[in-house]
């Protein structure tokens, strides 16, 4: 009896352990193959030069820059709004109020909406509504803003990453001990003064974490920018908000599905993928380290 029990136990532990090993192996496999495939293309020049010869040679600098600019604009839009929303949820909203519950539900919904829907929204709202409105009002109907560009793509992406920012900042705000707020109020400070002087400064690292995670997410998502501003080949870097831009993820997508010369571009594709992977890894790792430090500090 005991023997059978032991075998059962060993089996269960064994199988579950195998699952973990499987998952980890897959992760390592993917990373390994991508590194292997980018042999020959991945280099410093690759990161710093423009593509040549119809993308069969050269580097991906414009894609890197385009991604960078887009994530910066996206953060400028998402971080302040996300932070303020988080402040509302932790400092002003009573937990039971309908407003608070609805906002939380809305944030969670935003977090699970498929990324392509954001692209549709970007098209239907930013480009065709706001952009069209801007063209009508400022340019008398000429076509400038009512088309895909880096501004609309960034704003679309900021909606997608808003929940990420809100969750991170909320966690950081809640980490500020209740006792500090009480001390401040007992000294005759108002709520807003308390937030400004005590709560907010104590949550800055959380805001940073949220920003980094948002950038990581924004750099990797492609669906929202498929038809709101990303382009495959542009002669120059974007000069203004109404220009289109190149983007790492989009580049990988187009190159791997529609390039006319697979042989020559194979290693470039892998190298570009490696760049994107390294970028998201580093960002996520930094955010995780920051977050662990923050949790330890307030333990």
């Amino acid at each position, binding site marked *: 009896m005991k023997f059978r029990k032991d075998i059962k136990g060993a089996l269960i532990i064994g199988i579950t352990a195998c699952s973990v090993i499987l998952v980890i192996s897959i992760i390592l496999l993917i990373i390994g193959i991508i590194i292997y495939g980018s042999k020959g293309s991945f280099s410093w020049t690759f990161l710093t030069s423009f593509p040549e010869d119809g993308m069969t040679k050269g580097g991906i600098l414009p894609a890197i820059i385009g991604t960078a600019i887009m994530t910066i604009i996206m953060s400028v839009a998402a971080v302040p709004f996300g932070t303020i929303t988080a402040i509302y949820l932790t400092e002003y909203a009573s937990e039971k109020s309908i407003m608070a519950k609805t906002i939380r539900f809305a944030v969670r919904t935003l977090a699970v909406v498929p990324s392509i*829907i954001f692209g549709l929204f970007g098209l239907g709202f930013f480009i065709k509504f706001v952009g069209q409105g801007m063209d009508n009002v400022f340019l008398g109907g000429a076509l400038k803003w009512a088309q895909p560009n880096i501004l609309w793509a960034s704003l679309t992406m900021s909606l997608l990453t808003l929940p990420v920012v809100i969750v991170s900042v909320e966690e950081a705000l809640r980490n500020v001990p209740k006792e500090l707020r009480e001390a401040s109020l007992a000294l005759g400070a108002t709520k807003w003064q308390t937030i400004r002087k005590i709560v907010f400064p104590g949550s800055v690292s959380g805001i940073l974490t949220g920003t980094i995670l948002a950038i990581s997410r924004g750099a990797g998502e492609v669906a929202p920018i498929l038809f709101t501003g990303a382009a495959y080949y542009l002669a120059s870097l974007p000069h203004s908000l109404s220009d289109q831009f190149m983007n790492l993820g989009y580049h990988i997508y187009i190159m791997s599905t529609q390039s006319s010369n697979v042989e020559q571009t194979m290693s470039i594709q892998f190298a570009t993928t490696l760049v994107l992977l390294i970028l998201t890894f580093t960002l*996520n790792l930094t955010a995780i380290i920051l977050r662990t430090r923050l949790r330890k500090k307030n333990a």
Partner: protein
Amino acid sequence: MQTNDSKNDDIATGNSKKQQSNSFTKENLKKQFRFSEFFAEKIITGVAFLSITIIVLIFLFVFREALPLFKKSPVKVVNIEQVAMKPESYSSESVPLKPETYGNESTPEGSLNSDSQSDELKPEKYGAVADTALTNLNNSAPTNYGEANQESVNENNNQAAWKSLTGKDWYPVSDNPRFGLIPLLVGTLKVTIIAMLIAAPIAILAALFTSAFASRRLREIIKPVVELLASFPSVVIGFFALMVMATFFQNLLGYGFRLNAFIGGAAMALAAIPVIYTITEDALSAVPKTYKEASLALGANKWQTAFFVVLPAATPGIFAALLLGIGRVFGETMIALMATGNAAMISANPFESVRTLSATIGAEMAEVVFGDTHYSVLFLIGSLLFIFTFILNAIAEFYVKGKLMRRIQGR
């Protein structure tokens, strides 16, 4: 202790300076209106309200673009019949039905290069966008109706489209455009089912190990590593599937279509595993310690406790994890675009190419003419996806939380 006298003097002077305005009077304590306080609160509340606004806006604007499909125009019955009776006539341009096989042959779909080298591999060719359909229609329309302007033609097309939505043919750019959603739905379901069949067991078992059997040190290593998988952008997973997995499995299992539902599903499983894993692990760890202790005190050992006590107790959370995994896969676009073959075919064979709802939007939106029927149908698909994930999320929230609450309260 220093000399009492000097200390008291200091205190006395310090105090008397501030003594003046220091009395409890109704005037001193009268309620003040603080502008900054008031504005801060209003602005913060307003901004927070934005998140609700965004959801509402998304719904409004996505649905708005799909609205034309719902407009019923009173006249012009004849036109519809004409359209329906028109035989399939194909002319010029791109979009092959043949499932794409990236990496082996170059078949650009909706070519981005202006000169179409795309003509090479296609057995069939389809009518181009609405313009061509428009001219055809105009040519064959009886002159009684006079000039058919763009809008009315669109409305006709919309009528036809509306009828065809429940059909089995997705041919949006033929001269007889049909917008049957069934093949897309079937494709999405196939991929989702395959992905969940692969991801759920692996993720749940891995979570069980991490939460119940792994030592603390081990847990602190495993969790972040699996979360690392979550940080892989889906375009990277799609790329991996397209470049590596597809060839590997085709060589291994020898089926016909290089990119198919199985490859797409397997790749999506990679995206779903971290989601299911994290939530399941949280649910397992959230089972009150008292349950575990009671079980162990009764003589059960570690694995019996984990399997027969903890796992069942975490069921609502695991259910939520699965729901969210499904939601993730259902709406996933990039992996579908790159790994499923993008052919709107209906079959039960997992090794045949499929096309999912979101991939359709992603692939075709860049090509449609603003405002025409195809455009509206794509937005309709978007609205459906949005509603579906909304409902899924609502179920995960309310039902699961409710079940969890009832369980903990012992009902």
